[in-house]
């Protein structure tokens, strides 16, 4: 399936590159990985193109195209155990080139069949483009321990405009001397609604280190909002720190704006 294999590579590379160009990759991995994804995409596209061209060319299906076809002499692995019932593979495989060839013919076929599975994530990305992680995982995963490290932060300087910050920083400030560092400043937070609470709702945003598989949410409680947005709705909230939240920091909202999911949905 050398030609089909080339086509699969071409698809994989194209989809990777498309993820980078459209910025959609931010839903799945941390934004810093963009250049690496682009490099990988270009490399895989090149590989697929060359494979396609070679398989279509006059020497298509030539020995070099078939893995293991010509390998015969020398350099074969030597079984350090020497004997044992299993040395048959080596006995058969190493000296006789054709033996490797035959076994490989089938093996090659079977292994390449695994390559078809690469079409699964491609189909998922092209057809439905899985969304950013939502509230489903908030209650299931381990939440970020905001207290960890016991960060001590410099005090804010209240100004005419609210100060934008991450949910993690908000939480750390909340636990740092009971929120003394807020200094009364208004803050602006962006996250999604992770469910309702008495008197308000929960605001959450995931931290990721590498990809969405290692995401852990930071959760706050928002009170004072006039209405509660739908679950999983992204919001930008302006408000002030309110003490007395216990283990989950409190935010007294003065303004809640519903927004689209940001390009970089994770912190």
């Amino acid at each position, binding site marked *: 399936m*050398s*030609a*089909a*294999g080339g086509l*699969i590579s071409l698809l*994989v590379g194209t989809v990777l590159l498309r993820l980078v160009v459209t910025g959609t990759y931010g839903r*799945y991995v941390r934004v810093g990985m963009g250049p690496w*994804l682009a*490099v*990988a995409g270009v*490399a895989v596209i090149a590989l697929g193109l060359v*494979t396609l061209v070679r398989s279509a060319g006059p020497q*298509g299906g030539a*020995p*070099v195209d*078939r*893995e*293991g*076809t010509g*390998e015969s*002499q*020398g350099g074969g*692995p030597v079984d*350090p155990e020497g004997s044992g*019932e*299993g*040395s*048959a593979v080596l*006995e058969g495989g190493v000296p*006789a080139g054709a033996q490797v060839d*035959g*076994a*490989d*013919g*089938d*093996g090659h076929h*079977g*292994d*390449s069949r695994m390559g078809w*599975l690469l079409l*699964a*994530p491609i189909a998922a990305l092209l*057809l*439905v483009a*899985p*969304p950013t*992680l*939502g*509230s489903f995982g908030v209650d*299931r995963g381990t939440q970020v*321990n905001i207290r*960890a490290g016991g960060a001590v932060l410099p005090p804010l300087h209240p100004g005419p405009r609210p100060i934008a910050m991450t949910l993690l920083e908000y939480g750390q400030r909340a636990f740092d001397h009971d929120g003394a560092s807020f200094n009364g400043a208004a803050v602006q937070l962006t996250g999604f609604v992770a469910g309702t609470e008495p008197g308000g709702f929960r605001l959450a945003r995931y*931290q990721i*280190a*590498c*990809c*969405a*598989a*290692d995401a*852990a949410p930071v959760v706050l409680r928002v009170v004072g909002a006039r209405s509660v947005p739908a679950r999983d709705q992204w919001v930008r909230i302006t408000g002030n720190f309110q003490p007395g939240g216990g283990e989950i920091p409190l935010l007294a909202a003065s303004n809640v704006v519903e927004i689209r999911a940001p390009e970089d949905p994770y912190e």
Partner: protein
Amino acid sequence: MFMRTDGYIPVRSSSREVNEATPVESRRMQAERRDRREQPRHRRAARPVDAGIALVALVVVAAAALRPLLDHLLDRPAVAHWATVFVAITVQAMPFLVLGVVISAAVAAFVPAGFLPRALPRRPALAVPLAAAAGAALPGCECGSVPIAGRLIARGALPAAALAFLLSAPAINPVVLTATAVAFPGRPAVVVARLLASLLTSTVVGLVWARTGRDELLERAYRHRGAEGPPLAVLLSTAQHDLLQAGGFLIVGAATAATLQTVVPRGIIDAVAGAGPLALLALAGLAVVMAICSEADAFVAASLTQFSLTARLGFMVVGPMVDVKLVALQAGTFGRRFALRFAPLTLVVALVCSALVGRWLL
């Protein structure tokens, strides 16, 4: 858990035949088998090359036609969560997989056959620790080191040494150690403990494999000895082959990890939070199930503050060496029966080493 990978891997009759062959079997019988195996190859060669392309096109068209059905599928939060994690693991792994595949193909193309066995020490007692230490030179995560180790074995490197390299590279390279230092600020002991425990685990597993392991279980690695021809042609065909093969198994692993992350509530793990052997076991299990990149696991470990440092060390030692994605990749590169023995061995050794080093340093 490891059995989960079972159903995905096609068992081919030909490989079974080879395995059952005994050393005393005559050359004639082997030759007959060879002939039998040759036949289907000719039949395949006669098939038009374009059939594969047509199939790919068919899959794409069918998927596009089914799109309206799929749109509503993602309305279910659990399905959307699964799909996102599945795609995330796959996308995240691609750059590392490409790096590993390219290095592996370069070894196949430019390292002459017979060079590795001559150049490397033959005694396991020397070769294994050296190979484990050499893992520090490969930046990246575990997806990249699997094809490289497979190629080293195919090129005649001592399997025990290549396996030690396979285990240590994703755990002790500078990128991962730096990430660990960043995740545990002000706690250099964690970085040192991770380095030591991972090196120790890789070396011990390598030496155990050298003594008791059966290298014939690495059938797949040996079978893909690589094509012959001009180096560039070998480079390309090997890279293409390895990418599809390893990529396919990566998909199996990513799907398994996404399923486990979606289905198994992590609250179960929190129930045994604290110190002691149970916590260590729980976090090792979490590492196996989550299958996160070794460059990221330190941050997750740092967030698991309800567990002892030793348990979190276990999480960081086990994760880069044994997880569902990795076991699938190993099964695809070395062979299924190998992976089913190697993963439990590694897990046990990693747990013991983490407990010892954690007790000593943390």
